[in-house]
């Protein structure tokens, strides 16, 4: 039995109206939620209109794992590695959520994962991954490529 300051439960509601109840210690892994708790705004259900249920469940799972004292360092590492084995859509959802909720460890991991996706890729490939329109004029494109030619060696 952990003697925490309070056994308070924090209630969260995702964008698709799913409710989650977690212990305060889990919720405050998110800086955003921690601020709300500290400011006394966490007494009612907190609506999270930009995080859907699936992603929120994942984030809370992460937070729970990191609060669990029975989890070993190795187990945690494996958990984190497996956790990020996601398809792109989920990865982006997770990125938005981790950013909004400001769960530092998770955010760093997800950012690194997204960064790894673009490493070693050509601009065309990056555009394809992120569905970005090439808005350079041919002259501008030539210019920027010349400027950064050293990177393409």
């Amino acid at each position: 039995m952990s003697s925490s300051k309070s056994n308070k439960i924090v209630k969260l509601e995702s964008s698709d109206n799913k409710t989650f109840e977690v212990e305060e210690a889990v919720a405050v892994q998110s800086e955003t939620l921690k601020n709300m708790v500290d400011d006394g705004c966490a007494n009612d259900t907190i609506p999270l209109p930009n995080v859907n249920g699936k992603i929120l469940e994942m984030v809370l799972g992460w937070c729970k794992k990191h609060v669990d004292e029975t989890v070993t360092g190795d187990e945690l590492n494996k958990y984190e590695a497996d956790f990020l084995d996601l398809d792109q859509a989920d990865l982006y959802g997770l990125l938005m959520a981790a950013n909004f909720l400001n769960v530092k460890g998770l955010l760093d991991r997800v950012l690194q994962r997204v960064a790894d996706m673009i490493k070693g890729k050509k601009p065309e490939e990056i555009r394809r991954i992120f569905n970005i329109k090439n808005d350079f004029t041919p002259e501008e494109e030539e210019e920027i490529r010349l400027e950064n030619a050293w990177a393409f060696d």
Partner: protein
Amino acid sequence: MKRPLHSGNLSGDEITKKTKLVVVEEEEEREESALVNLDDDLLFEVLKHVDERTLATAACVSKRWRNTAHDERLWEMLCTRHWANTGCASDQLRTVVLALGGFRRLHASFLWPLLKTRTTSLSHSLSTTSFPPKKGCRRWGKDEVHLSLSLLSIRYYEKMDFSYKGCTNRKC
């Protein structure tokens, strides 16, 4: 038209081929809309985690990406990664480098060519061993940093409009 992503009524057993198709379509739809949500701040955060080549490549993707990838703070991080001891406060260094053309220019003109040469020569000499040569594995000390800054300032000086024509004969 937005369809619900996964209707809560479907259990694992009930997913038939037809439903799988629908799910794939929905995911594609979702993927398309999710992927363009990377705003400038998040893009900046992502680019903090990439290496020099990727950052330069990122600048070639689109105008928005170029503006973010050209942020001096990102290049400052990359440059200072190679520096063990610059012998001056980072604020001072920043002021000087920014005045002389910025970290991105410093990196492209002076750091990258040197780091590249060093790695190439290292990999030749170490080709018989299994030791993996790390890029720029020896971090620069005060002297090398000051040298690169001096070169940067010389380049800056030469570009100033004094009707300075001495450059044609001298090795720049």
